[in-house]
């Protein structure tokens, strides 16, 4: 930061990092699964028997 900005006490940022962890968790449902669409499609194409095991989870997210 520039020298003319007041320094934020290190302890002051801890709650904000905790908030970030929570907002990331909030964003993760259901975007975590949507973000893996390409990976799941790869699995379904090249290792279909593995993809079948994940089918109940896929049904849950899509529903």
């Amino acid at each position: 930061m520039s020298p003319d900005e007041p320094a934020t006490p290190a302890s002051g940022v801890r709650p904000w990092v905790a908030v970030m962890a929570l907002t990331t968790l909030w964003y993760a449902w259901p975007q975590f699964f949507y973000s893996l669409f390409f990976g799941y499609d790869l699995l379904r194409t090249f290792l279909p028997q593995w993809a079948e095991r994940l089918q109940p989870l896929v049904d849950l997210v899509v529903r």
Partner: protein
Amino acid sequence: MTGISLSLGFLGWLVSLAFTIALSLLAARPFRTGRRSLDLAVFVFLWIFLTTLITFLVGLAGGLKAGTLGLVSLAGVASIAVHPAWRRAVLAAGRDFASWRAVQAWWRSLPLWLRRGSLAFLVIAGVRAAFLIWALPPFIWDSLTYHLTNVAQWVQDGRIGLFLTPIDRIYTPANYEVLASWFAVFLHHDVVVEAAALPAYLLIGLSVYAIGRGLGLSADAGWIGVIAHVSTPAVVYAATGTKNDPFVAAAYLLMVALALDLRRRVAAGGEARPAGHFLLMGLAFLYALGTKSYVLHLAVGLIVLVAAGGDGLSLRERFRRLFARARADWRQGFEEHRWLLSLLWAGGLCLGLYWNLRNWVLTGNPFYPYGVSVADRAILDTGLGGFHFDVQNLLANLQVLAAKFGDKSGRIVPDLPGTTGWGWVAHGMGWPAAVWACVHVRKFRPVAAAFGVSLLTLLLSSPTSPWNMRYVAWFPAVLAVGLGAFMPHALEAGDLVRRVAITLFAFCVAMNTLMVLGYNLIPIREFQRMLALPVSQRHAGMLHVQVPMEYESAYQFVPPQARLGYNVDSNGFVYPLYRADFSQRLVYVPFTPRESCESIAQAMRSRGTRYLFVAPVHTDDLNIARLRECAADGSALRERAIGLYVTR
């Protein structure tokens, strides 16, 4: 395309690239700010601007051909080479911009974790972009209707101009299409046309860095902001998505960086060079205006940024200092470059105003085909919708934004239906970081206010639609810069907090990157189908993501040397019919369902074609039904293949 013509085209492209780079280095000299990141951003902007301008002027004159553009570029390179002062200036500027030692020093100044993560991100992002550009043809809806339809027709004709088609949106400002033509004309093929927005992506990254540095962030904090923003799904998709929005976003962010630098210099009372900053902001604004008109709305936020307090000066004093210095600066600082700056301004006016002026002259409405209404009163009515400056519209848009917030409705795909497209970093870390920065970093507040005002003025008039977030790809930059400001403090807050912050950041960037690998849309089987085809045969209609099967019939049954008639509605796909090498000549065949079969056949014959293409969703259902009746009747037309009719 033969090997020789391909080689010559590639050679012409290299010469044109050399010319435009040399010209941009020359043009960037008077604008040097002494801040490397801002100077680099200005150089990239001037390259985009000058490459578009040269292609535009040559194209208007009917020389949009590899040979003509190559010769013009060769003459330009030769002129610079034989002029000793220009040659020396280009070489000196090139050495300065491409200082490997400076890049190394900058890279070594970053902490090890950031260097490792950045290297992984840059390699994956680069390989991903190169692979997708090479493997897939264009597939974004608006590109297949009008952006690339313009490009294909212009390259085919060797001239920039209007042509007969039901797609009214070919009238909209088209600076992006001009630059995309530069990416297509030399190879006479669309294999790399998806790379046309990559310079804007680069400019977006450089501008975000310049904004961060302008706020006084350290190099690593500024770079964290860059990674945070350039990994945003909406930005990544747009970079190779054959759309014009990245250019508006890049111009806006560059203007913010320049305005911020101007504020800093004026407040410091030192060596302010406002004339250069004003000129550049004017050029960036004009370029964006000739790309998409919504930059007019975003500009309100820029005025807020220049006028906002926080630097200890009154509004009157700030503007007095600015304009007094701009006058003095123009008189003294730019004396030897005045002819160059005048040419740049003339070019800016051409690119900024040509499209709207042309539309005004031809249709009486500069924003044709869109109308303009304020509250409920129509100022310009085209019956096709348009800009509604209306508080009700703003409220409706804010409700739509609230519904999209958090991207809960589904996958984020390039057209962004029902989502913001801002992704993991912006939602997970960016919002809390921006709030933190507003509280703790005084200089950040005017920037946040400017972005907020730009967002509100845009939503005041933007159409309320599931897809309207593509206009807002610039917004997460303020969240990214906020995160850049926050991270150094988190990294000094003890081992646990440091580890959590780095892990969260790496995780969010990784998730954004995983999401965009295949546009979160293209199935693996479509990649397999495309890779099985030779590059020259990867026509847009072969990729069955948005394009229906009918388009393949046209490739299969209509010879490239024949003229192909088509009938689609005003939002239909025309571009795929040109083929990837723009070899198919097209003609629009209008008809109504009430016409006789013989009349339709006569309309085809009179336009020099015996083929008529139609496709569901893209052609009026009643027209398709009429053609089926005619084919069943068999007297004037027959169905050659699905979606393709020929005259008897």
